[in-house]
């Protein structure tokens, strides 16, 4: 196979965004994926699609602020309809004893630069979402949060990367990294070696298997995301809703379906790329929806689906060059918060790969923070 500057492993939303930014800068890049994207059983397929800035800590907040700047014009930049809506998000509480903690969180986020997050009372939230349960006493409101379609976004980045010269290799699993003289020289695929100067590992929960092959274990584990959606209904809910302590992310997408995520898991065998819906998770999650918006009780669920995400030990992404080997950068462990960040991650990682300098926004997220490797 013809040599390239950079091989990106994994054509999910993160890998595709990285490949796009590299191609845009004129770097010769190959984007490899074991499947034909949009692949099943992956996090990019089972993302809830929230484009959220609030409720981020540390470096994730900086990435989210930058990402939402990019999101503003992303559809025209990629020439794709990503079903992006910037209609706000409320994270609700039903327990007044949580108010002080909620206030502190909002204060911290305003100091971190998210100026349009504020505390809203229950009645204020019910003016925005008339059907919201009377149990909700308050919430944080951020008008510049929103949602988008994860599959369209993933494919949109990959297609735009290809249009700018990236080569896309679906059905091409990367089996190993070939090294000599302390740096990576190629990736091994079933069709033979693909020579390159840099490799970006954005393979989600399948990243650790490649890391182990080069002796750089990182504390990243698979977790199975589960989603469900209702039949299309008349448009009635424009913001995204969360509910503290209940594991829900609820939105109505432009097609009319209510889409429900939030943490109730699926199950399966990630090493076999296989995932199944857990019926009890559907039931628990349905109960939360009805608790939050009782008027949705009669709305039928028509489908549920699942995908494997990678979770890091500290719940923050792992982004940066690996120590001990030249030319390998990891971008994984997004812990269920990666979708919204993808445009900013793509931009920052491309810059790191191109000039070898780590942008400030990525400094706290490097793999060096796990000095001890994988905990027992």
């Amino acid at each position, binding site marked *: 196979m013809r040599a390239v500057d950079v091989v990106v492993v994994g054509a999910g939303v993160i890998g595709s965004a990285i490949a796009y930014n590299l191609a845009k800068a004129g770097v010769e890049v190959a984007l490899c994926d074991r499947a034909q994207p949009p692949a099943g059983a992956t996090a990019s397929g089972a993302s809830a699609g929230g484009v959220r800035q609030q409720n981020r800590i540390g470096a994730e907040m900086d990435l989210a602020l930058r990402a939402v700047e990019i999101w503003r014009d992303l559809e025209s930049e990629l020439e794709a309809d990503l079903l992006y809506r910037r209609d706000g998000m409320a994270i609700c509480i039903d327990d007044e004893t949580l108010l002080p903690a909620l206030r502190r969180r909002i204060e911290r986020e305003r100091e971190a630069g998210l100026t349009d997050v504020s505390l809203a009372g229950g009645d204020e939230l019910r003016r925005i979402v008339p059907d919201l349960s009377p149990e909700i006493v308050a919430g944080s409101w951020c008008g510049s949060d929103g949602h988008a379609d994860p599959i369209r976004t993933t494919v949109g980045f990959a297609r735009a990367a290809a249009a700018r010269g990236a080569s896309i290799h679906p059905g091409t699993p990367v089996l190993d990294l070939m090294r000599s003289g302390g740096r990576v020289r190629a990736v091994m695929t079933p069709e033979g070696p693909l020579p390159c100067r840099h490799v970006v590992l954005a393979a989600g929960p399948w990243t650790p298997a490649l890391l182990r092959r080069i002796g750089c274990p990182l504390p990243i584990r698979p977790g199975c995301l589960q989603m469900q959606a209702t039949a299309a209904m008349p448009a009635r809910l424009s913001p995204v809703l969360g509910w503290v302590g209940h594991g829900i992310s609820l939105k109505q997408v432009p097609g009319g379906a209510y889409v429900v995520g939030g943490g*109730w898991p699926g199950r399966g065998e990630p090493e076999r790329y296989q995932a199944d819906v857990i019926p009890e998770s559907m039931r628990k999650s349905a109960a939360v929806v009805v608790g939050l918006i009782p008027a949705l*009780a*009669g709305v*039928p669920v028509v489908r549920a689906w699942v995908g494997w995400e990678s*979770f890091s030990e*500290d719940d923050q992404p792992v982004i940066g060059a690996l120590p001990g080997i030249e030319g390998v950068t990891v971008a994984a462990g997004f812990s*269920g918060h990666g*979708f919204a960040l993808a445009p900013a991650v793509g931009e920052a990682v491309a810059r790191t790969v191109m000039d070898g300098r780590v942008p400030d926004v990525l400094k706290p997220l490097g793999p060096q923070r796990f000095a001890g490797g994988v905990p027992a």
Partner: protein
Amino acid sequence: MDSEDVVLCRCQGVGTDAVMAAIARHGLLTCDQVKKLTGAGMGWCQGRTCAPLLAAALAAAGVAGDPGPPRVRPPLRPVPLAVLAAGADALPAPLGTVSAKVLWGRSSGDTTLTLEPEPDRP
């Protein structure tokens, strides 16, 4: 949809024009890919009506080979949220939500009230 267009998926209101455009734009090969990128087959009937039409659209676009059916998803037929929810409180929660806390047995650092709401995770 414009007035000349023909409805292909009536549950989601997806027209033939949108489906043919997506097939051409993305080089789609299977009904499942068409479903994921257009929403056709994602509604009430879960493609029972439109799956053959999706296959026909792929054939009309010159796609050779078996386009397969769209993937079948639970719950197989529509179930109202309240029916699904009935008795859910009494269910054992073998599960908890997917989070670093569950997976690693510890929560992340400074998260006073980064209580676990809306991750983009489900």
